[in-house]
């Protein structure tokens, strides 16, 4: 969209801006402790998914310690925002938990590469002060709760899969994301696969029309609301639940077992999918086969422009991604993410060659 209003004013302020930049550049008024490097620092801005944010913020910090001249500023605005802003070119790279649709890719002004960085899961986290055991859920039960059909914690449907647990007589407060989000995508993608009612009434997307519940902004916001509200249930990435001491339930997988999210159970989910991953890496791995698989698992992707104008930024970003896919993977488990299978990493490194760096 091009708008040419107030050209004189705009031009003047822009000129002013350029002038100020020039002045501040000359005076070298940079507060950071830069080593006297031969190259000027590279600043890269990215935005998108909140799902991998704990890991990404760790990665960017660690990478900056190793390469003080590369500073990657990542803002967790949500996957929808990641897609939109990278398409607009307002950020250099995006990040999303739900792959872009074919139409979105077609509408993109330049080719975008989807690169899985890590495997994550989404867990049903709840706040029930009375219950100390880990609760069990089935897919259809979670769908019914989020459809507003099951409204109290001592509902028979919940009791049926949690024998021996004294369920309190409390209202269920559903907490969901208020913003567009890949975490939402993974969650509703799973619910749609296991519940025809969900698929018909709500559907799949990065933000959906929630039948019930209250909205929190970001994984952060949802975790905050669940933590503050007795009787709440929300979906989030397990790192957010663990770091806040919010318990989360086990979910019945396609093989009929109740499995809780763990590094191993999520890797088990990805194992089955590894063979069926397409060349563009856009694939859903929710509700996979396998006894040990946790059913609500997903890749999370970086969206990288294949033909960017600024090759310095591009080269620095590609170097970072290479590091993240190899050495960086070891930071994943401690933050609750499962590392990528080696075969996937290999294919990604090959795909990375497509990005213009000079």
């Amino acid at each position, binding site marked *: 969209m091009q*708008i040419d209003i107030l050209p004189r004013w705009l031009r003047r302020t*822009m000129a002013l*801006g350029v002038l100020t*930049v020039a002045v*501040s550049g000359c005076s070298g008024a940079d507060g*950071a402790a830069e080593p006297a490097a031969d190259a000027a620092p590279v*600043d890269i801005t990215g935005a998108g998914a909140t799902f991998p944010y704990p890991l990404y*913020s760790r990665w*960017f910090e660690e990478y900056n310690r190793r390469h003080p001249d590369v500073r990657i500023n990542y803002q967790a605005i949500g996957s929808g925002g990641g897609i939109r802003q990278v398409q607009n070119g307002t950020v250099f790279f995006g990040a999303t938990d739900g792959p872009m649709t074919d139409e979105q890719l077609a509408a993109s002004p330049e080719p975008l590469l989807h690169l899985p960085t890590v495997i994550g899961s989404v867990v049903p986290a709840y706040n029930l002060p009375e219950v100390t055991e880990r609760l069990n859920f089935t897919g259809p039960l979670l769908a019914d709760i989020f459809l507003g059909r099951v409204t109290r914690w001592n509902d028979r449907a919940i009791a049926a899969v949690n024998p021996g647990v004294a369920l309190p007589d409390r209202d269920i407060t559903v907490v969901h994301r208020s913003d567009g989000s890949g975490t939402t995508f993974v969650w509703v993608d799973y619910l749609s696969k296991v519940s025809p009612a969900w698929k018909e009434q709500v559907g799949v997307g990065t933000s959906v029309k929630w039948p019930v519940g209250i909205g929190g902004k970001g994984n952060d916001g949802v975790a905050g609301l669940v933590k503050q509200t007795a009787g709440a249930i929300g979906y989030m990435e397990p790192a957010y639940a663990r770091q806040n001491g919010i318990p989360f339930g086990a979910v019945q997988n396609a093989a009929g077992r109740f499995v809780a999210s763990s590094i191993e159970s999520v890797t088990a989910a990805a194992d089955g999918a590894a063979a069926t991953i397409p060349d563009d890496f856009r694939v859903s791995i929710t509700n996979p086969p396998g006894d040990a698989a946790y059913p609500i698992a997903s890749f999370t992707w970086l969206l990288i422009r294949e033909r960017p104008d600024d090759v310095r930024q591009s080269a620095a970003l590609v170097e970072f991604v290479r590091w993240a896919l190899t050495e960086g993977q070891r930071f994943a488990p401690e933050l609750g993410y499962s590392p990528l299978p080696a075969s996937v990493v290999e294919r990604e490194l090959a795909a990375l060659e497509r990005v213009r760096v000079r």
Partner: protein
Amino acid sequence: MPRDLRRRLVSTVMTSLSALSVLVALVPLGLLLFFVAVQGAAAISLDFFTQTPRPVGEPGGGMGNAIVGTLILCGTAALIAVPIGVLSGMFVVEFPQSPLAPAVRFAADTLNGVPSIVVGIFVYAIAVEPTGGFSAMAGGIALGVMMIPLITRTTEELLRLVPASLREGALALGATRGRAVLTVVLPAALPGIVTGVMLALARVAGETAPLLFTAFGNRFWSTDLTEPIGALTLQVYAYAISPYDDWHRQAWAGALVLLALVLGCSLAARAATRRLERMHR
């Protein structure tokens, strides 16, 4: 007389109610200042001013970059808004017969009431999308747009306060209108205008909504106007809605610093106003 008694009783009750309403307003003020002071003071340290934010799960870190960011954003906003605001205020006073004068006054009042989030959308459309990125410059423009009406109206009011004799004296000595205003009237009003600018800065320094899609936030030190930049308000927002106790503490500390900055600025302006008033008397 019972009727008289009733009237007096009603009067006493209503008078007490009016006193009570002052209390009703002061209780939340007291609670708010109390919580910010206590929680903020407990969390603040030297690191808070010198460090950048740490990744999730690593304790410590600070908002040094965001404090600098807020100052840069305010400075940019002032560079844009002060010339436009002062000159347009001058126009309203000097050319009252022009049909543009009431239009400027109306526009300034309207602009003053435009919700800050709407200013954010507007600046996103004119300064983020066309230039291809979020930037400190865009954030400064957004805050500048919010400052302009405040400065226009302050300038107008203060120029009117300058005694007509000053201007007429200058004109009688053969000065042109422009010369008279710029060399005699404006300097007389200048201290007041500076005060007004400080009050306007205090107001925009506390703004969050117009920065969400313009300045965007940055976890690193940055002084580059073409790059996204951190701001105290953005950082407090991000930390406040997070679920980490450590980040909540940082948010309170950030709120304390922000409040000190904003209140300090407006208190200084207020003190200056009082001195000016005394001088004029």
